[in-house]
């Protein structure tokens, strides 16, 4: 049978907003990694003594570091939200309504963040 196969072009994801949000979710993982590396660096500096840790803290107030965090924060928040949103689909079968799973995940994340902020 003679058929015509339409090629999938590199910009396939620009043709539907749903795919754009998906690609943003996937791309935002780069900022999650960068964020984690910044925190790991802080942990490393902490292990090297208070002077090293102080230096790391000061480096965070550099305009470039602030600019990075301004971009990373919303992307990390979006990334986290997308995974809470699909959490019910990735869990074993349960009769708990999806909304309850999503909302409790988000609340747990907010509470954990607030506790960390209070400790900091």
């Amino acid at each position, binding site marked *: *049978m*003679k*058929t*015509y*196969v*339409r090629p*999938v072009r590199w910009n*396939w*994801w620009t*043709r*539907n907003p*749903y*795919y754009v949000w*998906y690609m943003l979710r*996937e791309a935002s993982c780069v900022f999650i990694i960068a964020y984690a590396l910044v925190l790991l660096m802080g942990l490393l500096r902490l292990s090297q003594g208070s002077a090293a840790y102080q230096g790391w803290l000061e480096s965070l107030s550099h305009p470039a570091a602030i600019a990075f965090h301004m971009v990373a924060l919303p992307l990390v928040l979006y990334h986290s939200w997308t995974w809470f949103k*699909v959490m*019910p*689909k*990735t*869990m*074993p*079968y349960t*009769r708990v309504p999806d909304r309850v799973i999503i909302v409790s995940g988000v609340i747990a994340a907010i509470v954990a963040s607030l506790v960390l902020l209070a400790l900091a």
Partner: protein
Amino acid sequence: VRKIVIECLRWHPETGGEPRSQAYEVPFTDDMSVLQGLQHIKDHIDGSLTFRWSCRMAICGSCGAMVNGVPRLACEAFLRDFLPGPLRIEPLNHFPIVRDLAVDQSDFLRKLESAKPFIVPGEKTPQGAHLQTPAQMDRYYQYSKCINCLLCYAACPQYGLNEEFTGPAVLALLHRYNADSRDAGKAERMPVVNTESGVWGCTLVGYCSEVCPKGVDPARAINQNKIESAKDYALRFLK
């Protein structure tokens, strides 16, 4: 009578070449579906336009098409919602075009067969018939509503990028039988689930579940089976 321009993607195997778009001006009333718009074209304007349809009421799953870039059943979309137009109708994405809006479904059908989409009988129960509680039925019921319309395949970029991927509907139907308390065929189906082209080919885009006209959630079936697949992998070392 209001009118709307419907642009159809056309391709005929006899002429070949690149598919081209052809515009038709279609008069319509408020109760007319996109499918009825296509039927108007075929009956009154251009008899050479080819498309599949049967039931006209979202049961048969034949009339799936890209409607303004979104996979939809033509019978379930209404012309009045696309004013002022033009309305773009293309064959379902990711499938080879056979003729105009008709696509080649053989890849899907081959995969569907591999999933053994039927109850594999197990041991006989003492009472003869296999009884099932509503709670047991709830584990698979939504997946049993699939009508094989292929909208989820047209929505899945992973299938578009790699047609080896088993895809949403087949994996959802596979899960429908695995999750059925009367079935004993899980061990025969897990090899389909476990491969790179099985559930692991899915990156949870989730658009399959959005476009399903029957409320099936293939993304859920696939991602729950990632757990099953991991268990299946780990447990074989204990056997």
